[in-house]
């Protein structure tokens, strides 16, 4: 009786069970800024979680501390962020149990790229920025696209206000178009990096409805991670 399949009983087929009009993605907003210094890295993200005109939460951190020297900032589709970061945590724990040491920031950066590319044809819809201290003790920032392209950068802005913030960082941190001689360029200090990062968020909150409420800033040095929170517009 193998010829009797559901196709022969069209009356009993429940159409729409596969729900083809469903979209698996949703933009939940948020922005990240990361700046690498000589012996430190600063990463900042706002704490607003929204979709459309609704604000779900004003206190959702988007910074994930993966190791004592590595912090991942992740925005975009929040359900993908949750899945990706918990998968990263699991894989880092497996590495720790296998090799009896914590993954370096460079290794995490590479693994994140591979983990994202694994979903090449159903991507994690996220904007990731990884900041930390590398194996030589230098501050590093890696930025990613949703399918896993990884790039080492000095400073990077991502998320909904990323395009708004990146030129500011290029100018203020990398001193682009400043017509300065090499000897006149100041060395980037921690204080300067933190103040530029918080200022960019105050500006972004003025123009981007998906960025606001609070900005959480983490300063990563070899001695540990310092955390602070600054108020942003809440409207």
């Amino acid at each position: 009786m193998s010829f009797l399949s559901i196709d022969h009983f069209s009356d009993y087929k429940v159409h729409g069970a596969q729900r083809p009009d469903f979209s698996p993605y949703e933009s939940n907003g948020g922005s990240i800024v990361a700046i690498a210094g000589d012996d430190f890295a600063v990463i900042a993200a706002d704490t607003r979680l929204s979709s459309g005109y609704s604000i779900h939460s004003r206190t959702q951190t988007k910074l994930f501390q993966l190791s004592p020297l590595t912090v991942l900032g992740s925005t975009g589709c929040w359900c993908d962020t949750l899945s990706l970061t918990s998968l990263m945590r699991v894989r880092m724990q497996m590495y720790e149990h296998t090799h009896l040491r914590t993954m370096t920031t460079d290794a995490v950066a590479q693994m994140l790229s591979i983990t994202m590319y694994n979903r090449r044809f159903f991507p994690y819809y996220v904007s990731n920025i990884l900041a930390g201290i590398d194996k030589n003790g230098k501050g590093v920032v890696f930025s990613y696209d949703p399918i896993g392209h990884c790039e080492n950068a000095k400073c990077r802005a991502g998320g909904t206000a990323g395009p708004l913030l990146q030129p500011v960082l290029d100018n203020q941190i990398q001193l682009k178009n400043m017509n300065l001689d090499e000897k006149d360029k100041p060395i980037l200090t921690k204080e300067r990096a933190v103040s530029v990062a918080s200022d960019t968020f105050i500006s972004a909150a003025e123009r981007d409805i998906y960025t606001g409420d609070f900005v959480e800033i983490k300063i990563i040095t070899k001695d540990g991670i310092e955390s602070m929170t600054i108020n942003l517009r809440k409207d």
Partner: protein
Amino acid sequence: MFNNGIVQPLWYNGPSPGQFYNFPGYANNGNMKQCHETNNSDSTRSTAMITTGSSVLGIKFDQGVLIAADTLVSYGSLSRFQNIDRIFKINDNIIMGGGGDFADIQSIMRSIDQKMIEDQCYADNIAMRPKALATWMTRVLYNRRSRMNPLFIDVVIGGIDENNEPYLANVDLRGRAFSDYVVSTGFARHLALPLVREKKPADRDFTLEEASELIRQCMEVLYYRDTKNSSQYTVGVCKVKDSTSNQCDVEGPFQVDEKWSFAKMVKGY
């Protein structure tokens, strides 16, 4: 199948002899949109949801959480089941409120009930905590959305965590989850959430009295303004009993105290 063109339809918009009634979500031609067009239906409900529960509202207070939902389960715009409890006691630490497709809620509740039986079988005096259930829900819902076959539900999970702190979270059909002092689904997100946020003292949590008064006010607003709400609602309460145990109850049904005296003043409709 038996319609050979001779048999006339039995009544307008009804099934032909030997055929089935045209239920929502069921199309003879396999196309939901065409199904709507041939029915001349002007409703814009989602083709995927059939029996739906409306808003759920959860508020955290200093000693626990409250989760409220009305007792109506709709079938399109028909108020089909008017006395269904959408707040569930999971165990002594967890309560859950469910909105969205009620069949999907019942399906996930069967899985959760089975999990709780397994949890009790260990007889180790360790009961599941709300965060564990919320995380498990994100995995189930995320996997279903990744297979493009989602459970059309939006749930609020609350209770007391392992540090005896109140915990309140929302998980939606994609597996998006977050925790906050007030969470809501459906129309309550637009109507009730701002009312609760407005009343939140900056320096402390709500008390039980404040939280239950807010629930009462919000359910009244939802009843007046959301067409898919009924005047009857139930409230789940989960609170710390002592340092080693918690108490969860589903209270009600309560009735919104309707005031329609203003109705005769309304002109222009």
